């Protein structure tokens, strides 16, 4: 085996493409997520723009060979700016019959199928539900099919490393990665570096994976697949240092950045839940920033511990998914009543109940708005791309600290696990979100003449109350979920006071509209026939769709909300500037209801609730339908 040296740009007459969409699919245990991530990482380092869609089952190791156990990873790499992982893959890598059966329909017409032919035995065919071998019965007619005995070639490649034969085939994902890397002229070095870092401690496994990768790469040449070799040039990107980041890592780093920018110790109370757990894992690693993490006994304790930490003067977070938000509801009501800063991060998933734990959905918006007992308004922030989760965490913290309020961040499984190249920001450009604790008394008791701290004395501008933390002499005070008199904080059941407090809590949140950017409008800002209004992770599909319909000559504008509550103050004008409004959402029409109720505009929902993000084509269809097909 010779070492394979590749250099970017050395392409041996390979055909240039402007983009490609590849879908890796195999058993849950086949390492397809790893394969996809490594291909993505190598492409990112090469300089392509890209977007990814990991798509895996909830079962950790579903029975091998079954259709429901198929784990897939889709990536679009491109020589220009892309915002989605692509509608239909042009290449499908199927490691077994189940992967082929489950994924083939997604492949574009005349697309390329790369099969691990060793896996197509009677047993696997039967498990996948194939009565006949799809390679022979016409199922694959019209596709380019490349059959590769990956298992066998991997076993041969790793001979002599000392890896047992039955373990040897576990390296076949690296064989597949090597082959695809050859086909798309990806440099191998980033993958070799990764293998060394990940498996270096076990030299046998390290060597096996290296050899499998190289064997896959060499196979491309020796099998005369020259006609299948392509280049995708680096995309024009802003100058700077990039990294490939997924939404959950970006969120966690945003929480770290908020901690630094707030100059506070931070606390995360969390309970493991898919797809949010990785944020807890990541933050647990960063204790040196003064971040304390608690894996609580349940979702309620996770939120309550964060409230306790906030009372103590920490920047407090709780991370979860929809079912966890439901459980935290009462605690969020408490935080509204206490008027303490708290950031609640909801990585939405398909529901209700357990629903689709590993699949995406964005159907918690109305819960975030209204899903608490009584009148308990709070601000909502929604990142629109994986890397924007970083800034969403900082912005949510800023608002929570400045206005002494719980804030909800609505991410979702698609953002959480999807990754994209990210121009790493200069940390000196991040906003200062620090706040001040009360240090002096703010009231003199009329009867006793004693200087005291009244917990509900408010800043006239923000309506935020003072944050006096335990340990501060002279400012001892009691707060609670029970209704209190504004100012003194004493328990009060007076009718007028309760009405005043309900109105004040609402006014405080509503006034944040003055402190957030106007909703940005892009596309045909003046004179569009239709406005697409989006929020959250639909951004990528909407941007692509709007580009496509505008390229065909239609006049369409796009407004995307990061601040979903309160709405930016220009939103009313934006919505009334266009004759038609379409709201694509991964729910049954939640933002569209909110804007209809708030602004009396005839906003039409475009719903998708399949556990999968919108494709750009689906949004194009929605736009064209509402435009009337003209």
């Amino acid at each position: 085996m010779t070492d394979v040296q590749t250099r970017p740009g050395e392409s041996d007459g390979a055909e240039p493409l402007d983009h490609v969409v590849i879908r890796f699919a195999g058993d849950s245990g086949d390492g397809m997520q790893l394969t996809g991530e490594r291909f993505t990482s190598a492409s990112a380092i090469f300089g392509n723009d890209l977007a990814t869609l990991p798509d895996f089952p909830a079962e950790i190791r579903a029975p091998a060979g079954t259709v429901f156990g198929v784990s897939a990873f889709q990536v679009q790499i491109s020589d220009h700016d892309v915002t989605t992982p692509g509608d239909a893959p042009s290449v499908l890598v199927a490691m077994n019959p189940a992967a082929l059966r489950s994924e083939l329909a997604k492949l574009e017409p005349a697309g390329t199928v790369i099969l691990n032919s060793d896996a197509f035995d009677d047993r696997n065919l039967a498990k996948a539900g194939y009565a006949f071998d799809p390679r022979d019965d016409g199922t694959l007619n019209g596709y380019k099919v490349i059959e590769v005995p990956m298992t066998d070639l991997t076993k041969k490649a790793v001979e002599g490393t000392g890896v047992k034969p039955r373990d040897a085939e576990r390296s076949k994902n690296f064989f597949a990665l090597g082959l695809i890397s050859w086909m798309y002229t990806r440099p191998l070095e980033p993958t070799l570096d990764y293998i060394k870092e990940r498996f270096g401690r076990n030299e046998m496994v390290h060597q096996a994976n290296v050899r499998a990768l190289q064997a896959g790469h060499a196979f491309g040449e020796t099998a005369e697949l020259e006609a299948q070799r392509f280049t995708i040039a680096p995309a024009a990107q802003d100058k700077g240092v990039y990294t490939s980041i997924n939404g959950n890592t970006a969120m966690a780093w945003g929480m770290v950045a908020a901690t630094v920018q707030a100059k506070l110790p931070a606390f995360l109370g969390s309970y493991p839940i898919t797809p949010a757990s990785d944020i807890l894992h990541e933050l647990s690693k960063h204790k040196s920033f003064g971040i304390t993490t608690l894996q609580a006994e349940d979702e309620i304790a996770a939120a309550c511990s964060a409230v306790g930490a906030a009372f103590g003067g920490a920047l407090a977070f709780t991370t979860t998914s929809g079912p966890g938000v439901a459980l935290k509801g009462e605690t969020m009501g408490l935080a509204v009543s206490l008027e303490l800063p708290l950031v609640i991060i909801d990585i939405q998933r398909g529901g209700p109940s357990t629903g689709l734990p590993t699949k995406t959905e964005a159907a918690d918006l109305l819960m975030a708005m209204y899903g608490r007992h009584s009148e308990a308004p709070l601000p909502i922030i929604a990142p629109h791309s994986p890397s924007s989760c970083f800034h969403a965490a900082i912005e949510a913290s800023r608002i929570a600290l400045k206005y002494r309020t719980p804030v909800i961040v609505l991410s979702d499984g698609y953002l959480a696990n999807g990754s994209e190249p990210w121009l790493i920001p200069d940390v000196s450009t991040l906003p200062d979100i620090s706040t001040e604790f009360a240090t002096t008394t703010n009231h003199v008791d009329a009867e006793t003449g004693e200087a005291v701290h009244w917990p509900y004395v408010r800043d006239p501008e923000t309506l935020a109350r003072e944050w006096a933390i335990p340990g501060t002499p002279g400012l001892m005070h009691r707060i609670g979920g029970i209704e209190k008199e504004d100012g003194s904080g004493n328990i009060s059941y007076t009718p007028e006071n309760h009405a005043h407090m309900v109105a004040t809590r609402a006014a405080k949140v509503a006034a944040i509209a003055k402190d957030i950017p106007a909703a940005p409008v892009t596309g045909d800002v003046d004179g569009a026939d239709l406005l697409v209004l989006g929020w959250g992770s639909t951004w990528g599909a909407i941007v692509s769709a709007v580009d496509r319909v505008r390229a065909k000559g239609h006049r369409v504008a796009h407004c995307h909300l990061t601040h979903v509550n309160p709405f930016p103050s220009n939103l009313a004008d934006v919505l009334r500037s266009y004759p038609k409004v379409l709201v694509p959402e991964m729910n049954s029409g939640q933002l569209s209801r909110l804007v209809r109720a708030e602004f009396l505009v005839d906003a039409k929902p475009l719903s998708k609730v399949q556990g999968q993000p919108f494709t750009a084509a689906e949004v194009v269809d929605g736009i064209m339908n509402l435009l009337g097909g003209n």
Partner: protein
Amino acid sequence: MTDVQVPAPTTRKDWQTDQEVRWCPGCGDYGILTAVQMLMPELGVRPENTVFVSGIGCAARFPYYMKTYGMHGIHGRAPAIATGLAMARPDLDIWVVGGDGDLLSIGGNHFIHALRRNVNLTILLFNNMIYGLTKGQYSPTSELGKVTKSTPAGSIDAPFNPVSVALGAGATFVARTHDMDRKHMMEVMRRAHDHKGAAVVEIFQNCNVFNDGAWDTLVTRDNRPDMLIDLRHGEPIRFGADNEKGVVMGSDGAPRIVEVADVGEDAILVHDEQRSGPGLAFMLSHLASGVDMPTPVGVFRAVETTEYASASKSQLTAAQERSGAGDLSALLHSLPTWEV
């Protein structure tokens, strides 16, 4: 707790708020409040470094009457709120106050987890064996057969024994007292406060409206000598007006009550609150299965082990000593990067 500077002495008045106390006249809570307010000056701590956290229920109004920092939270969640506060602020002196419904029913999960983590909290569990604030339903400590508004035919729920629950959850300090004996309350609470870790004090408390006299067989001045067994570390477990009764460990492994004269003084079980395993304390907690049986009070268990908030803080400190204060820019560049 460790105050850096020597705290200025306080008086009982320094710990009293101007809030009108709103418990029913005659409620046992008054006696407990007085005991706590009288104890605080003796502990040498400062009001500004003290926090009372509560859930919901009659007992949970307690923080409003203490001139300290305080939070009246939501039902059952005080131990969870206090855990987060203790982790963020291990420098504080944190008390949790709740009733039997608050801490053992809706908050049972948080109660046991705060105990097994050994968070530095002093937990006062007011046990009146009834729901008071919701006006008279049976509680998780109500006796079998209890007739209440929600159990007109009698409760069929086996009650919790709070001390047993706490010991089962691994609590490192567990004690019991009652609202009729201020001196005993203060002594037990002082021990609980000084304990580094989670400390539970079950307080027999009379609800004179919905469960009046529920503890009378044990706690009235006349009944105490024969019905309360005061546990004292290192001393034989004896009680009775003339100390004539005692507890022995039977050859069947079960403790039982005997006349000391019948077995001899040397046969009497010597109380050992510091025994590392909770087994003996657990057996003592089950010595009585109802208020008609002699019942141990005092400190059942007091063992020192790693405290949670300080352990968490140590991990933070260790991380900072290892790699310095966090460097945000370095973090953002910690995955593979490339330059354009």
